[in-house]
């Protein structure tokens, strides 16, 4: 299976203090500026809405919401949005469309035959190959498990809840797979591919709905377990 995206460790520091953009976080001296933190004179300030996280001398804010920003190596579920003679444009849920060159497509594609190989609306499993400084990204479909997704469902959760879906050491995703008997691939852009019997798919989608609605509150694993048991 191609599931990927273990927790990036940013779950730590939850249920600490909620900070809002512009809020002063104390003097900047001898402190390391982390994610979601900026400077105003000799003060540190929060630049995002989130929970304050202080680890050693590093101060950061764990945002309650965040847009998906592609990083090389990310496994993502994308939709074909357009094409030219030798490239496709892929919606990967990021601020910009990614590019899939013909040379990185699965199998051989003739010049000018991109639409015959994969038309607009096709769902694909791909991996981010490179991201440049202006956030333009290139994705590849050359690699194990990367393919067109012709069956199953795609559901979506906000990318900042990915860590909750995976759970600690993959516990949550494992629980969902075992309870529903479905194949599930978690893209790091927050899109999940689910394939299985209709009953199982419905169960997973119910669980994802719960994660979307209550994922920001503590005690999520217990709630999802309760839903699966019922």
């Amino acid at each position, binding site marked *: 299976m191609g599931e990927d995206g273990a927790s990036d460790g940013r779950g730590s520091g939850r*249920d*600490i*203090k*909620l900070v*809002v*953009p*512009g*809020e*002063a976080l104390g003097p900047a001296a001898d402190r390391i500026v982390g994610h*979601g933190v*900026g400077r*105003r004179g000799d003060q540190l*300030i929060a*630049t*995002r*809405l*989130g*929970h304050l996280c202080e680890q050693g001398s590093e101060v950061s804010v764990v*945002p*309650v*919401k*965040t*847009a998906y920003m592609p990083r090389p190596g990310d496994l993502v579920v994308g939709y074909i949005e357009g094409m030219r003679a030798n490239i496709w444009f892929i919606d990967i849920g990021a*601020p*910009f*469309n990614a590019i899939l060159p013909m040379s990185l497509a699965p199998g051989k594609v003739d010049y000018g035959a991109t639409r015959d190989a994969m038309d607009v609306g096709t769902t694909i499993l791909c991996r981010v190959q490179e991201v440049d400084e*202006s*956030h333009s990204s290139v994705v590849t479909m050359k690699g194990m498990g990367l393919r067109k997704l012709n069956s199953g469902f795609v559901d979506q959760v906000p990318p*900042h809840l990915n860590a909750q879906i995976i759970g600690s050491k993959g516990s949550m995703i494992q629980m969902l797979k075992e309870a529903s008997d479905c194949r599930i691939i978690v893209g790091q852009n927050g899109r999940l591919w689910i394939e299985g019997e209709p009953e199982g798919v419905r169960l997973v989608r119910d669980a994802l709905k719960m994660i979307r609605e209550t994922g*920001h*509150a503590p005690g999520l694993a217990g709630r999802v377990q309760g839903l699966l048991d019922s």
Partner: protein
Amino acid sequence: MGGYGDVQMIDEDGKRVDGRGPGDLRPIEIEVGVVPVADGSASIRWGANYAIATVYGPMEAHPRKISRQERAVLDVRYNMAPFSTTDRMRPGFNRRSREISKVTSDALESVVQLELYPRSKIRVEIEVLCAEAGTRCVGLTAASVALADAGIPMTDMVVSVASGKINGVVVCDLNKEEDNYGEADLPMGVLPNTGDLVFLQMDGDLSPEEFQQAWDYNVNAAQAVHEIMVAALADRYGGGE
């Protein structure tokens, strides 16, 4: 402004038509996350004003010609619903909504860290459902909360309040009668953490002393509104101390 100078809107005790004192705000309620499909959203009730602001993005900038190589663009659209006023508001963009969209965008651009999302677009939509004077301030404040809710990086949140003059007295947060029949109106956008000014317009005449008084009212009121904004965000996402 000032065409109805004989209308008495404040008595000798400093009590206004709706019972407020000169420095008092109308009641304000803010709710976060009212539009689940949006990346960020907020509704605000400010007196009889009712507005909803939503934020989508950062997303691919369309049309292409508006995109900037080095930063994101803020695409702000302020609109009043046809049923929001007693005289039906003709639907669609007009000169006034275009102006308010522009000044709102300029005010928000001074706090949003646009350089983090080059070539993209952040869409802010403000829909006024019920209007009772000061809708540009209400819209800007709601947009600020919606941007924070969407997780957009900002150096501060903009708070907007208007003060003005009625029957020769400077008062804070004009209501409909005071706005229609008063002598001056001074909407301001303030950054509550630094006191910086990011938006200012003025209608009517104020002496330097009156201007200073209206300014002080706005800056103090901005602190009070900011507390309500923070409480609304904490209410949605839990937390606080």
